[in-house]
C-alpha cells in the first residue's frame, strides 16, 4: 500500500467523503470521532486517509472526548476536526463552548439526521440549526456553513478551516443526511490552487507573550503548546493574560470581544447565493438539501411566469441579516422550506420585520420536501 497525498482531480464521491477530503486538503492532520449514522463515513475516510498524509486518527470513547481531543490537538499546533450527527452533536456542545472560550480553531461537521433523540438515524433532518447557534450554554457567536452538494461539502470544509484559523473558534459544517450520502462529481484542485489561512502565531518573544491581547480585528495570536510560550488558558472568564477573573467587568469585556470578533467581520464571513431576487414578488430562502429542492420548484414556478427568486444560505451563522432586511423592502413574501418545525424561518421573520410576509414550509424529517409542495406555496403567495 502506498501513501497518497491530497487527492487531485475529478472524483465520484459522497458528501461525507468529500467532507473528509476537504479536511485533508485544508491541512487537517488530526481527527477524533465516534461512529454515528449518517456521519460515520467521514470518520472512516479519515481513518484511511490521515495515516497517508502523516496525520493521526483516533476513535474516541464518545463525542465528549472527541470534541475535547480536537481542541487539545489544535493547541498542539495541528489542524483538527471531528464529525457527528444529532445525538453526538448534543454531547459536543459542552466542549464546543470550551473551544469558543479558549478561542481554539477546529472544525465540526454535523451530518444532520432527524431528531429529537435517536429519531431517524439513517434519514435526513435539519433540526440542529438553532442548536448550532445556541446549543452550548452562555452568550457567544458561532460560524456555521451549510453545503448543498458533495462538492460543497469539500469546499465548505476547507472554508470552515480557514475561517476557524482566521477568527479562532470552532466552525460548524452543517450538512444533512441526503447531502452526506448522495454521490456526485467532486473536483479537487491541486494544493497550490487552494488558499489556506495560516494560524496567527505570536510575534512577541515567549517572555512577553500574553494569550489574549486583542488585535485590531479582535482576534489574538495563538501560541502552540511546546513552543516555549508557557501560556495558561482556562474555560473560566479570564483577562488578557488568560488568568481567571471572576467579575462582571471581565465577563463583559471578554464575552463582548468573543461575539464582536464575528459580528464586526460578518461581511467577510457571510456567503449567500441569489438567483433572480432583484425583482421577485416571492423569494424562497433555504439551505442544504432543501435549497436544491427549492431551486427546482423556483424553476417550475418561473415556467408559469411567476417572478420568484431564490436565496440560498451558504453561511447560516452569522445570519445574513442585512441582506434579508434589504430584500424584505423589495419583495412581498419569503418562503422558507426547512426540514424541522421552523428554525431559520425565525431569523428570516425577524429580519423581514413585517415588511414582507414570511411563510414557513416545515417538514419533520425523514425525507426532503416534495418540489410540488414548494411550488404550491409559491403559487399561493402570488395569488
Amino acid at each position, binding site marked *: 500500500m502506498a501513501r497518497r497525498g491530497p487527492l487531485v482531480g475529478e472524483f465520484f464521491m459522497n458528501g461525507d467523503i468529500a467532507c473528509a477530503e476537504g479536511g485533508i486538503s485544508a491541512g487537517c492532520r488530526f481527527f477524533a470521532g465516534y461512529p454515528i449514522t449518517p456521519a460515520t463515513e467521514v470518520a472512516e475516510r479519515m481513518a484511511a486517509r490521515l495515516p497517508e498524509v*502523516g496525520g493521526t486518527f483516533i476513535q474516541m470513547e464518545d463525542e465528549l472526548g472527541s470534541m475535547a481531543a480536537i481542541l487539545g490537538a489544535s493547541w498542539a499546533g495541528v489542524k483538527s476536526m471531528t464529525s457527528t450527527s444529532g445525538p453526538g452533536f448534543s454531547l459536543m456542545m459542552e466542549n464546543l463552548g470550551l473551544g469558543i472560550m479558549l478561542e481554539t480553531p477546529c472544525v465540526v461537521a454535523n451530518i444532520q439526521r432527524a431528531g429529537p433523540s435517536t429519531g431517524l438515524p439513517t434519514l435526513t433532518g435539519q433540526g440542529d440549526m438553532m442548536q448550532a447557534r445556541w446549543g452550548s450554554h452562555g452568550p457567544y457567536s458561532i460560524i456555521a456553513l451549510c453545503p448543498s452538494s458533495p462538492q460543497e461539502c469539500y469546499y465548505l470544509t476547507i472554508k470552515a478551516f480557514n475561517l476557524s484559523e482566521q477568527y479562532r473558534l470552532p466552525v460548524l459544517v452543517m450538512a444533512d443526511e441526503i447531502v452526506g450520502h448522495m454521490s456526485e462529481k467532486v473536483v479537487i484542485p491541486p494544493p497550490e490552487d487552494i488558499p489556506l489561512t495560516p494560524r496567527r*502565531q505570536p510575534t512577541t518573544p515567549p517572555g512577553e507573550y500574553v494569550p489574549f491581547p486583542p488585535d485590531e480585528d479582535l482576534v489574538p495570536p495563538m501560541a502552540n*503548546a511546546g513552543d*516555549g510560550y508557557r*501560556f495558561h488558558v*482556562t474555560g*473560566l472568564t479570564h483577562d488578557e493574560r488568560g488568568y*481567571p477573573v471572576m467579575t462582571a467587568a471581565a465577563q463583559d469585556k471578554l464575552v463582548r470581544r468573543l461575539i464582536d470578533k464575528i459580528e464586526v467581520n460578518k461581511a467577510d464571513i457571510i456567503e449567500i447565493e441569489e438567483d433572480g431576487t432583484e425583482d421577485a414578488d416571492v423569494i424562497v430562502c433555504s439551505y442544504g438539501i432543501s435549497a436544491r429542492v427549492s431551486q427546482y420548484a423556483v424553476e417550475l414556478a418561473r415556467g408559469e411566469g411567476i417572478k420568484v427568486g431564490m436565496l440560498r444560505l451558504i453561511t447560516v451563522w452569522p445570519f445574513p441579516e442585512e441582506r434579508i432586511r434589504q430584500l424584505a423592502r423589495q419583495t412581498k413574501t419569503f418562503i422558507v422550506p426547512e426540514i424541522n418545525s421552523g428554525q431559520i424561518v425565525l431569523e428570516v421573520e425577524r429580519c423581514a420585520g413585517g415588511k414582507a410576509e414570511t411563510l414557513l414550509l416545515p417538514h419533520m424529517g425523514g425525507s426532503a420536501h416534495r418540489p410540488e409542495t414548494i411550488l404550491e406555496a409559491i403559487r399561493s403567495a402570488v395569488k
Partner: protein
Amino acid sequence: MNDDGSEQTQEMDQYLREDRMPHIWCPGCGIGSVLHCFLSALVKTDIDADKVCVVSGIGCTGRAAGYVHLDSFHTTHGRAIPFATGLKLANPELQVVVFSGDGDLVAIGGNHLIHAARRNIDMTIICVNNFNYGMTGGQLGPTTPLDARTATSPSGNYERPFNIPYLAAASGATYVARWTSMHVRRLEQTINEALLKRGFKFIEVIAPCPTVYGRMNRQPTGMDQMRYYQENSVIQHGADPKDVDIDLNGKIIVGKFIDIDLPTYSDLQLRVEQKAFGPEESKGEAVKKKAATAASKSK
C-alpha cells in the same frame, strides 16, 4: 518537606506563576503539597519544561493548571484526559501531565480515564483524592468511603466507593501508585519515576480537605487528617490493587502497585502503519512532517 534546599526551591519557583499567588486552596488543604511534589519531581528530571503541558479539569485540584508556569490548560469537568490525548497524539514530543481531582477524573471523567488507560496513551495522571467534591461544598464523590458524612450524605454514605488504583490497573494503566500528601518525598520520587517512564501512569494522592470533608468526619483540621495518614498508612509496594480499598478511618495501603512495560498507543499505531506502508516512512518522519506542517502554517 523543606529539606530540599533553597537552590531547588528557587528552581521550582520558575515553574510557579507567582503573579497568581495567593492560591485559592484552604488552609490545611493537601493540593499545594502535591503540586510542590510534582514541580520538585519535574526539576529533578532533564525534561525540557517548554515541552511539558499540564491539563486539569474542574474542581479544587483543577485549579493547579492555573498556578504552573508551564503550558497549562484548565478545561471542562471530566475532560482533561481526552484534551490531553489530543495534545499528546498531535505532538508526541510533548510531556503531558493531567493534574486533577477524584470527582473530575473518576466520576464525570471516568469513561475517559478507563479508555486512555486501555489505550496506554503516554501521559502521567496525578489524581488528588480528597474523598469529596470540595469546591462545591463537600458533596459525596465516587471515592467517599461508606458511612462518611458529606453534604449529600448527611447521615452517612451508602454508595460503595471506587478503589481507584484497582480501576486504573484493571483498565490497563502500566504504572499505578498511591501515596498520601504526607508522603512528600516518596510522592516526589514516584512522580519523578512516572515522568521518565513511557505509558499511561496513574498516581493517586490521598489529600486532606479539612474545610468540608474533614469537618464532617471528625478530622476538622489538615493536621488531624495528616495524623490519620501517619497512623494508618501502610507501605506495601506490589500490593494487589484489588486489596487497597479505603474504609472510613481505616488503613491506607500506599506504595507502587503496578509498574510494567507495554507498547503505548503510539507504538502500536506505528507498528500498524509500518506494516501498511512499509518501514521506509516511519512515524518519526510523519511526526517531523507534522512539525513542518505546523511550522509552515506560521509563515
